[in-house]
């Protein structure tokens, strides 16, 4: 059966047979980089279009429908426009930081791609601290945002960046606790092991109510961490024009925009991996026949399906809920999410120790 696993194996065998190990490894790295960049470009185009279509349907509109059949080339046309626009740098801006910030944000998004398992044995870097790596790198994105806000020398940008900083720092906690519940149940930080532990059922179903609560908390926390509505105070249009990227234009703006959507993809991929079994097909306990039928669907399809389901969920939130105020935002985190996730973690620990989960 043709799978991503066999393709990568064939390429690797061929490369190592043809070249010395060093050169083969270099070529592999180049291939991976190219694949990553391609994935970024495609994801950016697809997710922006998806967002606009979902938004339109939820608001009883049609959405983009002029460029190409059903508007599918709309985002390609937008990208073309952004490429041709002038990338303006304000006179009073800190030029170096101003130009560096979009790349920092982008680089963080790229680094996060490393430990994600896209399909069975199809992973860039299967480190043994995968989950820790993800949570530590994702908190770096606040540096890029603060950098952009500070360097723009614009009060809206600075306010947006500061709000974003406060938000990411506080919501990191409950996202971390939600991730920890799965780590407690699995006993491993390695992504491949977490996926493998869900072979007889996803954690969402195996872990009783505490894991469902953890899943909800995770979705809320990552919505806040990616600065999306209802937690989009960092770029609240009505108050701060566009927040930290007010002064950006052309391709530099496009990088921020792209990074935002890539981050959504990544947090949803992590969520799918932790709670919905990543590339693992839907298996139910010892139903051998059922499990066998489910295995016929390729693992990459499972992974993408789950990830896009979560992405849709987050888009659904965005177009349903009104934006929170800053004090409400911090109240929600420190008075509700954090105590609940602490208590929940305790419950999960008890479940894991007593072995009550399936």
């Amino acid at each position, binding site marked *: 059966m043709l799978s991503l696993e066999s393709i990568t194996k064939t390429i690797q065998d061929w490369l190592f047979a043809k070249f010395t190990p060093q050169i083969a490894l270099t070529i592999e790295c180049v291939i991976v980089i190219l694949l990553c960049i391609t994935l970024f470009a495609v994801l950016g185009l697809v997710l922006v279009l998806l967002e606009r279509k*979902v938004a339109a*349907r*939820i*608001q*009883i*509109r*049609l959405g983009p429908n002029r460029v190409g059949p059903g508007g599918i080339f709309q985002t390609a046309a937008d990208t073309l426009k952004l490429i041709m626009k002038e990338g303006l740098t304000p006179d009073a801006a800190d030029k170096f930081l101003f130009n560096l910030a979009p790349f920092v944000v982008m680089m963080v998004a790229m680094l996060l791609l490393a430990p994600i398992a896209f399909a069975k044995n199809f992973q860039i870097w299967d480190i043994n601290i995968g989950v820790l790596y993800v949570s530590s790198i994702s908190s770096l994105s606040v540096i890029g945002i603060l950098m952009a806000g500070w360097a723009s020398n614009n009060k809206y940008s600075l306010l947006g960046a500061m709000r974003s900083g406060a938000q990411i720092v506080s919501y990191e906690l409950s996202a971390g606790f939600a991730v920890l519940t799965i780590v407690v149940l699995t006993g491993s930080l390695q992504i491949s092991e977490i996926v493998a532990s869900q072979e007889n059922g996803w954690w969402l179903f195996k872990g009783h109510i505490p894991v469902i609560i953890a899943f909800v908390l995770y979705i809320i926390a990552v919505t806040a961490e990616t600065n999306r509505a209802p937690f989009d105070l960092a770029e609240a249009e009505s108050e701060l024009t566009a927040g930290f990227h007010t002064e950006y234009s052309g391709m530099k703006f496009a990088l921020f925009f792209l990074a935002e959507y890539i981050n959504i993809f990544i947090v949803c991929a992590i969520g799918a991996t932790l709670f919905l079994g990543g590339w693992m097909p839907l298996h139910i306990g010892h139903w051998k026949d059922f499990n066998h039928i489910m295995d016929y669907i390729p693992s990459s399809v499972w992974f993408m399906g789950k990830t896009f389901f979560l992405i849709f969920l987050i888009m*659904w*939130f965005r*177009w*349903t*809920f009104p934006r929170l105020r800053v004090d409400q935002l911090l109240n929600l985190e420190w008075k*509700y999410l954090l105590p*609940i996730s602490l208590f929940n973690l305790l419950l999960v620990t008890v479940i894991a120790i007593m072995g009550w989960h399936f």
Partner: protein
Amino acid sequence: MFLKDYISDVYNGVTSLLKGMRKTGYYFTHSKEIITEQYPDNRATLKLADRFKGEVVMPHDQNNEHTCTGCTACELACPNGTIKIITKFDITPEGKKKKAIDAFIYRLEMCTLCNLCIVACPSDAIIMAPNFEHSVFDRSKLTKVLNKPGSKIKEGIE
């Protein structure tokens, strides 16, 4: 007691959010709810709301008769001086003089579509029509005479 309030807070918050999501989810899955009109493409089948106010028109029946008595109530009601009624005197078959309109002049460029003239009219001679394609190349084309040439007042309207 505190814990009870806390839990009911969380519960109410979650349920109200779910209620909202249910509504938007319904809209997402039901494409028949879409209200967008693809305007230039569907000009022939365009449906406008009944209340849509585009311009003032005077309806005429098949005998080219309207119900305007020329009382100038609309002219007096108009805050902008949009309407100007020029009256004349018809001679009835009995030889009496009867007041009638010569020209109902309506200046669309001055009209704010406030509907006061329609409300003021005692004989419902004018209505708001759902026309919105008003662009013309010359401003004078926006000054319209609403009564059709040769039209007269309907029998029995005083």
